[in-house]
């Protein structure tokens, strides 16, 4: 019966969502959000410090309480006008910014602290998988002060996962680490991203982290959500401060289409085209996320016949926006339907010289492609 099935599907969609509505009014800080977030994947709460992203996370965890808030997670009410579940009754996991392991317990007992208090905690086999995934098996008998910052944070992540939360909240888990430790822990987070089935809210001010980890982005500024959407869409919106930044980039989900062993190259395909990259040791069909900085894309009106640039993509100009320093930010569509967005940042001088206009076909020359996972 198709109607019955449809009803089931729409009910499933409604319960597979996080709805958060909060308003905070302090003299020096205000927050006003009403968000519908996907009930799966990694959603980044992204913005500068002071934009309210940590406050929002704490409100969702119940570590802060404001009246008239509303929060439901995958169909369950955590807060409304009658209900306020205290933090310890919310099925969540929380990873704090700085190392938050209990100093009086070793790593194993830290892991077990939450498990002992949770009816549906992980079974030993699943726990072993998490321990392996985060690479902490050899650290379990150590006390927190015997661990490095990165190791502590990995144990803290495992501890949050061990209670099998319905929602994982991460408050800049890498911010307190130096660059080396950050790059030591990022691969673990990327593996988590692929392995986890629960929604993750990830607070960050680093575009690089967000580009690597997030599926959905909430761009926060001064306590408001400026934009909410799939990461590729939000990153390439020229009206947002994100795209106007020096580090602005477009993100492209690609699948590995083939390898060229003679030239040590790999071809990846995306909606609307393909790119050549240096040889990747990944099987055909694997997905990778490519990041192309706006400053690495130049434009030509005719296809450059002789160029050292490997990736030259036919594209159409979707949007032109003048930004500071006499520069122009251009959003391009590569391919027709479906199209993929690309950003290019060029000087106003070049823009005028070439007479660039919306709708015009151009050739985008991509100097560098960074791979995110």
């Amino acid at each position, binding site marked *: 019966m198709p109607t019955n099935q449809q009803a089931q599907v729409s009910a499933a969609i409604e319960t597979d969502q996080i709805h958060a509505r909060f308003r905070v009014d302090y003299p020096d800080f205000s927050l006003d959000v009403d968000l519908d977030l996907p009930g799966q994947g990694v959603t980044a709460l992204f913005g500068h410090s002071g934009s309210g992203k940590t406050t929002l996370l704490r409100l969702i965890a119940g570590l802060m309480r404001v009246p008239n808030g509303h929060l439901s997670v995958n169909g369950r009410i955590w807060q409304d006008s009658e209900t306020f579940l*205290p933090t*310890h009754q919310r099925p969540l996991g929380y990873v*704090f910014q700085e190392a938050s392991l*209990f100093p*009086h317990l070793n790593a194993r007992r830290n892991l077990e*602290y939450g498990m002992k*208090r949770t009816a549906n905690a992980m079974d030993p086999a699943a726990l072993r998988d998490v321990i392996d995934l985060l690479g902490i098996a050899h650290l379990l008998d150590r006390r927190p002060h015997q661990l490095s910052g990165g190791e502590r944070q990995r144990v803290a992540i495992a501890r949050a996962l061990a209670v099998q939360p319905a929602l994982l909240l991460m408050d800049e888990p890498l911010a307190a680490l130096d660059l080396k430790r950050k790059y030591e822990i990022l691969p673990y987070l990327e593996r988590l991203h692929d392995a986890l089935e629960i929604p993750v809210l990830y607070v960050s001010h680093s575009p690089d982290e967000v580009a690597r980890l997030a599926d959905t982005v909430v761009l926060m500024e001064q306590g408001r959500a400026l934009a909410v959407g799939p990461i590729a869409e939000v990153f390439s919106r020229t009206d947002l401060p994100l795209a106007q930044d020096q580090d602005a980039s477009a993100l492209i989900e690609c699948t590995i289409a083939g390898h060229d062993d003679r030239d040590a190259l790999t071809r990846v395909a995306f909606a609307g085209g393909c790119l050549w990259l240096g040889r990747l040791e990944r099987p055909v069909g694997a997905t990778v996320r490519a990041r192309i900085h706006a400053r690495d894309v130049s434009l030509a009106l005719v296809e450059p016949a002789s160029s050292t640039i490997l990736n030259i993509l036919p594209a159409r100009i979707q949007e032109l926006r003048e930004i500071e320093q006499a520069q122009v930010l251009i959003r391009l569509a590569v391919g027709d339907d479906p199209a993929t967005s690309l950003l290019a940042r060029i000087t106003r001088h070049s823009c005028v010289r070439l007479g660039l206009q919306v709708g015009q076909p151009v050739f985008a020359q991509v100097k560098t492609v960074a791979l995110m996972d």
Partner: protein
Amino acid sequence: MGFSDADLQAIWLTLRLASLVTLLLLLIGTPIAWWLARTRSRWKGPVGAVVALPLVLPPTVLGFYLLVAMGPNGPVGQFTQWLGIGLLPFTFWGLVVASVFYSMPFVVQPIQNAIEALGERPLEVAATLRAGPWDRFFTVVLPLARPGFLTAAILGFAHTVGEFGVVLMIGGNIPGATRVVSVQIFDYVEAMEYGEAHWLAASMVIFSFLVLLALYTLNPNQRKF
């Protein structure tokens, strides 16, 4: 020479008093310290000051007001009479009540400092790991603030053992009921029995030294009084 029966009685009474007072102080002082450490109420200052008053008041002043309050016309006295347990002054329980007030800051302040040093974070972490309020107190606060509780217990005990002025005001000098070691020494000195006074006084010096030694050895990094 050695301790007389009266000395032993005074020592036993003193230990009983100090143990009971320490226990009561940990029970009463912990919630007060908890509240003082975490509240943002405007009453924090006044309550903290009242708790600390015995640190600066002459024991006779504290003893005088306690005596008045617990006397036949005082509010505490009327209450105890209404309860049918009579009046507290010049009884062991009167000393217990007075000592609880007198030693309160020595218990509250170390616990308050320890809880303040602990901060909010470990409690938040425990809450995100499903620990309820009491659970958080016993599995996070108590083990992490243990040095503070230990300091509080030792100081509360030692300070009760050493009190004199309040005891004289409230308890007088009744053998077996209110004649504690410090009062016994006072009696010996009044009677010019210096030999007997030496025995007890020297014991107190050694006892106090050992208590402080224990405190400094067990808690090498903790703030002291």
